[in-house]
């Protein structure tokens, strides 16, 4: 492992820990601002949306299999299937598309 990679991991772990630890240790006040509360509530969905699209279409190195995986994941997620089921089905669909592409 390079020194730079170790530095990346230290920064990741350090910032993430401080964000969790400082409020628990230092502040005892509740956040009253409705804007801040709402902002923090929406952050996970914003992050996940931004990280997923368009990156998911490059996740398999092949746009066709990625679209197959994404489509299956979207449909199953829409109907409320669990995380694991959606993830495995997306992988299975992408794999099937890769194999099918090899036949033609």
């Amino acid at each position, binding site marked *: 492992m390079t020194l730079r990679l170790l530095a*990346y*991991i230290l*920064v*990741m*772990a350090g*910032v*993430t820990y401080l*964000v*969790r*630890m*400082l*409020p*628990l*240790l230092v*502040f*005892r006040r*509740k*956040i009253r601002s409705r*804007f801040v*509360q*709402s*902002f*923090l*509530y*929406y*952050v*996970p*969905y*914003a*992050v*996940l*949306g*931004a*990280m*997923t*699209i*368009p990156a*998911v279409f490059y*996740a*398999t*190195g*092949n746009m066709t*299999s*990625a679209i197959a*995986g*994404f489509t299956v*994941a979207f449909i199953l*997620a829409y109907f409320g*299937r669990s*995380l*694991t089921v*959606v*993830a*495995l089905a*997306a*992988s299975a669909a*992408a*794999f099937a598309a*890769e*194999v099918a592409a090899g036949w033609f």
Partner: protein
Amino acid sequence: MSSSARSSFMRGLKDSIPIALGYLSVSFGFGIMAVNNGLSVFAAVLISMTNLTSAGQVAGLTVIASNGGMFEMAIAQLVINLRYSLMSLSLSQKLDSRFTRLSRMAVSFGITDEIFAVASGKSEEVSKHYMAGLISLPWVGWSLGTLLGAAAGELLPEKLKAALGIAIYGMFIAIFVPAARKAVGVLIVVIIAVAASCCLRYIPLFSGISEGFAIIICTVIAAAAGALFFPVAQDKPDEQQEGGGEQ
């Protein structure tokens, strides 16, 4: 350990079993993604053992893979994980009087969306032994899943590895799609985030913006728009947590 401490610890462990099982599968996807991005099994597991958060780790991988700067990494982690501050604040009201500074510092390491949700769902105050039980099993699941995923990523044939690379995105989709279906605010936030992310990726004007900063910009714009136009009800941490499970 006294017998009441032991029973608190065991109750924590028991409450954490579903979380640990969930983490095992999500972190498997992270492990695969990490080795697909050129990290070693050891580095992938080290990240999971020290971070214990999915979105932050995936964003971190993005920064590492694009050789981004350390400042970029720090800001990305800060923005993405800032919500944990809110949970810490809320949880600080729930810890029993036997929490010392040291035990507060230890417990804070393990605050995730799911662990917070379970702890804050308790009707009574929580003890440090309960929290220790509640955190340890999910931590093991998270680290072990990463190890298995990363090892599988090194052993599996190319086609299967490529297909499994989509698994973590499948989990992300499984979180934001049902939530967007239930709440129009979440739907709008996701649409804005996705639109911003596509703009930053495909419009040549923005090609100088690194991937880590792109995630930060999309997140801030979309979450701020959501907070402005669809503010959530105040002082309802339980309600907030319902959809907050992103790990």
